[in-house]
């Protein structure tokens, strides 16, 4: 089986979960004997990747893949998927056009059995190849524009591209039941065309040598030794993440148990609003903002924490929850997150239910037994989901797409 995989990023130049998922999925597929050509919108070296052939569609630096100047003033690594302003989009459109042309030329020389396209950024290229060469298209949905816009309307052009890609695709892979139903309800795609394939933890997490670095986070550590429960949340601070609800719940919990320390790790457009809110609620002493962190520093946060909260209003999957569970955190997840479909050893709540969230935080912080049980069981549970199994599910879908 020969697959043309269309993506927008790969580690080490990834800004978030999309690149990690593509990387692990491609590696697992190659172990199953699949030959993969992977197209990226930028030109960069990937010393760790020898299991597939990577093609650069442009000569751009990885930093410019979302359009020229998009990240001059903001933190580059802070954007999982762009939420572009109109002028930035113009230049993303240019990159997409180039990407499309390059891919068509590539296919002319090296015909794949199936095209596997990841998210709206690559759908146009996938549709073009299907139209020109009749190659079956599998569209992989890591997030829809509805998720990215946090319940508001979203960008009409992106909606149009997303809809056209999903309509033309022979099969669709959704990262959760939740996403599957959004695709069905919002875009009217029949359920029979959509299969759910969950993500798993980044394999490199298990393979890399990692040890908690003692010199960092001294303050949080001192609080922990003083009997505080450390609660963290990680992600882009956008409306989609439901962090204000978390802040209100934190206020309620701290009122009953002052020995709680909340760590908000990440950055984004809601940051100032959140800092303000913590001050207004009078809990700024119990809330730490770390700014954007990644890699070892992020793993330190997971290690240090007792509890990890995913407060998203709409989260197609939620890889950070698996990362946190891997580092031994107990999980509290919103029912609006895809990851809550596969982890049953976790507390769950609706994103708006501040009372429930605060009582769950209090229960975990006041009962070491409950905390340890949830930490242990969540870890056991997700260890059972492997990339090997995910690759096998993808292969089956490729065969279905070929008809």
């Amino acid at each position: 089986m020969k697959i043309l995989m269309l993506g927008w990023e790969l580690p080490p130049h990834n800004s978030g979960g999309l690149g990690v998922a593509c990387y692990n999925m491609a590696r697992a597929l190659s172990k199953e004997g699949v030959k993969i050509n992977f197209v990226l919108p930028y030109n960069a070296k990937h010393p760790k990747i020898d299991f597939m052939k990577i093609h650069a569609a442009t000569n751009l630096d990885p930093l410019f893949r979302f359009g020229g100047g998009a990240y001059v003033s903001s933190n580059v690594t802070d954007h999982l998927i762009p939420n572009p302003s109109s002028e930035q989009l113009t230049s993303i459109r240019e990159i997409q056009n180039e990407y499309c042309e390059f891919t068509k030329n590539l296919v002319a020389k090296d015909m794949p059995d199936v095209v596997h396209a990841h998210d709206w950024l690559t759908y146009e290229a996938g549709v073009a190849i299907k139209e020109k060469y009749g190659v079956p298209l599998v569209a992989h949905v890591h997030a829809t524009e509805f998720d990215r816009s946090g319940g508001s309307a979203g960008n009409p052009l992106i909606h149009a591209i997303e809809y056209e890609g999903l309509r033309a695709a022979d099969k669709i892979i959704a990262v959760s039941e939740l996403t599957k139903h959004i695709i069905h309800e919002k875009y009217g795609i029949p359920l029979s065309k959509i299969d759910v394939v969950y993500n798993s933890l980044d394999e490199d997490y298990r393979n890399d040598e990692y040890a908690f670095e003692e010199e960092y986070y001294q303050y949080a550590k001192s609080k922990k030794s003083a009997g505080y429960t450390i609660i963290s949340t990680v992600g882009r601070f956008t409306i989609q993440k439901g962090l204000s609800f978390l802040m209100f719940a934190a206020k309620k919990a701290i009122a009953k148990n002052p020995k709680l320390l909340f760590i908000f790790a990440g950055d984004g457009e809601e940051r100032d609003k959140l800092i303000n809110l913590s001050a207004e609620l009078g809990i700024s002493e119990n809330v730490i903002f770390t700014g954007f962190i990644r890699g070892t520093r992020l793993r330190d946060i997971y290690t240090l924490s007792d509890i990890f909260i995913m407060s998203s209003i709409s989260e197609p999957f939620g890889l950070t929850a698996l990362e946190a569970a891997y580092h031994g955190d107990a999980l509290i997840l919103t029912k609006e997150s895809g990851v809550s479909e596969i982890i049953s050893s976790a507390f769950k709540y609706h994103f708006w239910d501040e009372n429930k969230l605060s009582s769950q935080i209090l229960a975990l912080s006041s009962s070491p037994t409950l905390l340890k049980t949830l930490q242990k069981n969540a870890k056991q549970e997700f260890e059972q989901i492997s990339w090997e199994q995910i690759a096998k599910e993808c292969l089956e879908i490729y065969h279905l797409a070929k008809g």
Partner: protein
Amino acid sequence: MLDLLEKKMHEFPEFKVSFSITGTWLEQAEKWDPSLIAQIKRMVERGQVELLSETYYHSLAYFFDLDEFNAQVDQHSAKIKKLFNVKPKVFRNTELAYNNSLAKWAEKKGYQGILAEGWDKILGWRSPNHVYRPVDCSKIKLLLKNYRLSDDIAFRFSNRDWKEHPLTVKKYQRWINDDCLRGNLINLFMDFETFGEHQWADTGIFKFFDQFVTSWMKEYDNKFVTASEACQLESPVDEISMPNTITWADTERDLSAWLSNSMQNSALETLFSFKDLVFKTKDQKLISDWRLLTTSDHPYSMCTKYWRDGDVHAYFSAYASPYESFMYFMNILRDLEYRLSVSSL
């Protein structure tokens, strides 16, 4: 089900059953539908229903606190005496939890018989269809559940994947007759909620029961007996020893559904650590609330084994997960602690 039982009792004056009813249920019936109490009383007075002895609160107190266990059993007997004017003669512990020392306790307490699971690992080649004597006892009889024939109704009746589905009266009666070759006493013990809850009405369970009673009574020499009558049927054929606790739950047949994970242990340890303080207040409301928390359903809903598969543990839990169950239980205990601190002022 009560209506059906009463109807069959009118049709066949020799049709008899034994009930094991908790004090908690009786209290609720008194409060919300006293006609149920009256109905049971009619059946008791006709001599066709025997009431068994158990803990008032459906608790596992025996394994934590013998004084409390005795108190709950006595409270139950008093309630049965008050409502139905009878004194239970046979004891069955919560979830059929049984071991040798419980049998000795029951003998000392003067019971004629005690109930337990007829588990193969204990019985070996022996049949559950006889009356036995618990080891180191001299008077009390032991009745063992015929779990295959009981579970054919209680668990498998409506299971379409079961190769015997659908279970007909004729087939079931033939199985019983076959099984009688290894002893004439078939002990069918099952939950009341088998009829209508585990097996919904549309499975045909009521019709099956209705026809089975009629069909069984038609055959010459067939009988239904109550638990204490069963004890009188024959002298014990052998001694049975169960040094470890055996229950009727899950494939393990032990207490692990209630007392295996750390949440369950911690919840019950905390609960029993409050006992002395609660009783010292002599506040009846507080004491009764504390005793309600000893009900075995609480730790059952904290059980983490199997629950992911949506089996009986999850089905009969009022909570979204074992973790939530534990959370609410501990919150209630904290509230109890608070009430204690207030009442001691």
